[in-house]
């Protein structure tokens, strides 16, 4: 593993972890929601960034994680930590199933992206209709703070948990990027025929990627549920999360170790600032963050086609000269 690649990320997360000591609740809420998106985006990055299989439907995994934790606790009295583990496993399983159906059918590019979107939408509609998911009125997880319940009286403690999860996936991603599996992912992204000729089992590589990706994004969903203690189908399986993880990765740099984290923080940071600034001038403007997300995506594609991480590298190299 290349320490130069993960160190800035770990430092960033350490800084975030000490912020609760000084920062206000507004900042804490901002960090919590940014890190949940960052974690979900790290999942997207493994499949979309490294393996090159673009997904428009990562809500399918996020929602599965969120619902698994909530339903297990509420309906079956299962411990929240067990719920988290089951949620991750179910997210991986949903990923594997979507992958098995679409990769076996040789779906690629925009066809694959649309199929993932369709899966997420079907799950959203089912969750909205079924009884055990609470239907349209959603699910409320009973408030009972305590480490054993994966609930924390202080926001800071939850932030530490989230930051550790993001750090763990950061290390996992860096490890993968420097091993055979990572080389196979990238080979599949760059040229499937060439990969196959060199002995890469393309189908198996993609299935592993989507299962891993689904598991990581499902973990973000689980933690979302535990943080807000409420969810419904439009939150858990909503297109908002599919879009945010995609933009975070594109903004930060797809297929880079730090890209999703940097992208998610930048995305949410600018979104929040825009809300604040406009709120001062014109009162609350609903949906302004969506406009900002769109504008950021356009700017990123136009000026940072390889993301902020590549842009930063160019900048530091330029300064060093």
């Amino acid at each position, binding site marked *: 593993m290349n320490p130069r690649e993960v160190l800035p990320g770990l430092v960033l997360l350490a800084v975030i972890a000490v912020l609760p000591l000084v920062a206000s609740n507004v900042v804490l809420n901002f960090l919590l929601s940014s890190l949940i998106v960052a974690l979900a985006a790290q999942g997207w990055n493994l499949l979309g960034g490294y393996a090159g299989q673009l997904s428009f439907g990562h809500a399918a995994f996020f929602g599965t994680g969120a619902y698994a934790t909530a339903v297990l606790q509420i309906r079956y009295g299962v411990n929240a930590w067990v719920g988290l583990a089951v949620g991750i496993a179910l997210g991986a399983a949903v990923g594997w199933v979507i992958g098995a159906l679409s990769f076996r059918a040789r779906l690629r590019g925009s066809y694959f992206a649309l199929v993932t979107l369709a899966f997420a939408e079907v799950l959203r509609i089912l969750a909205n209709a079924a009884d055990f998911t609470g239907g349209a009125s959603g699910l409320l997880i009973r408030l009972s703070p305590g480490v054993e319940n994966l609930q924390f009286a202080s926001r800071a403690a939850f932030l530490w948990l989230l930051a550790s999860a993001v750090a763990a996936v950061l290390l996992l991603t860096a490890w993968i990027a420097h091993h*055979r599996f990572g*080389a*196979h992912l*990238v080979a599949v992204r*760059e040229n499937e*025929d*060439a990969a*196959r*000729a*060199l002995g890469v089992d393309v189908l198996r590589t993609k299935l592993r990627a989507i299962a891993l990706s689904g598991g990581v994004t499902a973990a973000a969903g689980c933690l979302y549920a535990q943080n807000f203690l409420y969810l419904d189908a439009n939150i858990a399986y909503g297109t908002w999360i599919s879009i945010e993880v995609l933009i975070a990765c594109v903004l930060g740099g797809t297929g880079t170790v730090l890209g999703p984290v940097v992208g998610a923080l930048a995305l949410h940071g600018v979104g929040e600032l825009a809300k604040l600034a406009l709120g001062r001038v014109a009162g609350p403007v609903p949906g302004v963050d969506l406009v900002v997300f769109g504008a950021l995506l356009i700017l990123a594609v136009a000026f940072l086609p390889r993301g902020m991480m590549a842009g930063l590298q160019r900048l530091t190299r330029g300064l060093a000269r």
Partner: protein
Amino acid sequence: MSLLRAEGLSRRFGGLLAVDGASLEVPEGGLIGLIGPNGAGKTTLFALLSGFLAPSAGRVEFAGADVTAEPPHRRALRGMARTFQIVQPFAGLTVRENIAVGAYLRHSARREAIRSAEAVAEEVGLGPMLDGQAAALTVAGRKRLELARALATEPRLLLLDEVLAGLNPSEVRDIIPVIRAIRERGVAILMIEHVMQAVMNLCDHVHVLAGGRMIAAGPPQAVTADPRVIEAYLGHGAAARIAAGSAHA
């Protein structure tokens, strides 16, 4: 015993029989040429041998095992490596990373894979380009990269599809010894080639494919003098005209 044995391979594309009952053998350590006019079905035959296309009929045996139904990555694991006539680099990666993908087939640890990739790069003359982007290579460089990646899988058999095409004469002269050295290490080679200088120079034995069929086989000198081969390249009656022409002279 032959390392590769193809029997009665056929492949149909709609109404076109691109390969029609072709058979060939590559002995352990041999260097065999496959020549034939454009559109003869050579590349298609390679795709059948390496598993990229399923044959409509016939079978492929590699090292004594029937591999006809095996996907390409399995055949690679058995020791069959191919290059592509239309080069297929991993364009976004460096030369080192490109070759390492091949090396990972036999070396699961990164350190060993990279070391082996670098050794292969030296062998084919890509040493100085290791850190460069694959997309920035010249045509000759890309052909070497195809060769290097395949070689990095440590194959028993290399299938080379026109690795010399598009190179200038001095580049061809540079790469011929590389191919000979690979063969001298005991790797069997089956090469599709249009550059006759190379075929004459390198091959023990040559097969000629025309219209999907094997029309001749033998030592390079004999095959290139075979009237059926001359006709396949130059058209019906060409051999007779050439013979008549030299009789007049």
